[in-house]
């Protein structure tokens, strides 16, 4: 019983988390993406900028966009980008992939990242 109860609590917590993600503000995320847009495109087939094109990033292996010159660190990372990976990377790029060459110091606020990712995921579909 005890075990079942804690599973229910966990499920409720996950639901709450999912609700949180759903409640993320896509419009706000679009605004936050301006910080990224100087270097990254996200439309299908758009050119790489200073950073790689982001179309289809979720589920993609790190360091594999055509014609983009990645850092050795990114190529070696072995990451297959999940939402959680992206969240951690955007929070502190050098902590998640040390010695990568994205010149961005990070987005520390969890709500900012949730909104940004909500926008990115909706825009990338």
């Amino acid at each position: 019983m005890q075990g079942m109860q804690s599973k229910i609590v966990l499920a409720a917590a996950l639901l709450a988390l999912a609700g949180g993600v759903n409640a993320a503000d896509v419009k706000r995320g679009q605004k936050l993406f301006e910080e990224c847009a100087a270097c990254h495109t996200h439309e299908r087939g758009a050119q790489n900028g200073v950073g790689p094109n982001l179309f289809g990033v979720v589920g993609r292996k790190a360091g594999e966009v055509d014609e983009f010159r990645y850092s050795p660190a990114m190529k070696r990372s072995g990451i297959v980008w999940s939402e959680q990976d992206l969240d951690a990377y955007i929070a502190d790029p050098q902590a998640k992939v040390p010695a990568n060459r994205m010149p961005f110091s990070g987005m520390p606020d969890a709500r900012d990242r949730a909104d940004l990712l909500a926008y990115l995921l909706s825009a990338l579909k």
Partner: protein
Amino acid sequence: MAKKLPEVDVVLVGLGWTGGILAKELSEAGLKVVALERGAPRTPQEDFSLPRIRDELRFSSRNDLTQNTQRDTLTIRNNPSQDALPMRRLGSFLPGEGVGGAGAHWNGVTWRWNDTEFKIRSRYEERYGKKFIPEDMTIQDWGITYAELEPYYEKFERTAAVSGKAGNLRGRIENGGNPFEGARNSEYPLPPLNQSLACDMFTAAAKDNGYHPFPRPVANASRAYTNPDGSKFGPCEYCGFCERFGCEANAKGSPLITVIPIAMRNPNFELRTHSWVTKVLKDPSGKKVTGVTYTNTLNGEEYEQPAGMVALTAYAINNVHLMLLSGIGKPYDPVAQTGVVGKNYCYQTGAAATLFFEGRQFNPFMGTGGLNVGMDDFHYDWNFDRAPHGFIGGYNVAGGMTHGRPISYRPLPAGTPQWGKEWKAASAKWYNSAMIISSSGSVMANRYNYFELDPNYRNVFGAPLMRMTFDYKANEHRMGEHAANVINRIAKSMNPTLMNPATARTEPWSVVPYQSTHNTGGTIMGTNPGNSVVNKYCQSWDCHNLFVLGAGVFPHNSAYNPTGPVGALAYWTADAIKNRYLKNQAPLVSA
């Protein structure tokens, strides 16, 4: 024999800020535009990405983005009695080369020069009398006004993503900005950068001393920004690799992320790199130019590019050189005081104090090109009475550091040994516990500061080098002493543990240590052909289809960095060409 190419509407000589602005504006107006750039092609994606751009040895110590003196340089002397020698290494100033020009590696500081400069002679004569201006000080009114240029300053600031705080909005003095600036029609496109500890400490000290500090306006985007042309900027990351480097985060206002890529997408525009223009050609009447000759520096092939219009958009000094090599306009002669091409070369001067605070942590490595607080109390405050101090012009004081790079940022108390154990210990002790207060001062034009062709030395193409004759005069020495006193007074009021005081530069100018890349004059602007090379539209008085852009048109130098008016004048000239000159191809100002 040069191969003759099909005629185009416009040839631009050099592709930095001024060339980029004209390239965009004139190709959009339907003109066929060719830019001839002597240096390499360059893009932020290929050239400024991490980690290669944070290579201090390559880009700062060895000046990778600047002119190669083995191909072309200047000869230098302090006065006409000396023999000039070639500058074989860059030192005092760093002319840009390659696509983007100095616009790639500048700090981004963007000021609005106003009528304090444009009406300098008449304003000083009116207030202090004609005798206050020394006889050999060849300052003159420019023929343009701040009111005419204001919309173009705004346009340039919006293009380049300038962060700052207005101090004078349509005549109303605003808190937090520079109360002495000219009236602005609108706020800066972006709010000021985040201020550092050094900025905050200087701000407090300057206020305590009764001055008016403000965050310096700078083309470092304080937050993400899309400019009116749709060019996207990232927020500045305060990486400390700004001046002498390209921006890795697309946060610095640069022609490489704004006007140049827009022109490159326009089928009317063509860029040819490694193309060294050797001469501007004139028709037999001498009243019009017909194009240029240039050499492909990769294979030595020579071309003639005929054009309906030519604009010199290279670095200021190189524009002057090309005018002299092309025999356009009468060369300046300081003895007879005739001629104008090469006249009124000006530079800048400065002083600096280093303040050491035991136990304070300044983190200078978190820096950016404009991370400074400035004050204009001895520059654009016209109420500051120059009479007791005996100088014309002024200086801006700034507190803070723009970088803490490992090779070149080494604040050490005076008397520290230059190497060895004690040097290491002092480096470690003070690197993070020092801050700087500095001044940048104007230089007034002088009869004996000028350019001409050198009689002895030639460049790699066999053309005479240009000779620079320059030294600071008594006016600048007096101003430097005033500046050093003010800096030291503010610094002492901050009670540092130790301090290297500021001293005025009074020894002869030397080309060896880096000082400033703000070289002006030589193709100066004025009210008539007798006192200037170009009219207020940067149009040659001699050949009406020749335009000369850049800081060479400034008849004297301000304490302010030059890029604000360089950019504004490029937009102003582009408008004059599009809206007036194309309809009636004639002088825009009657001589």
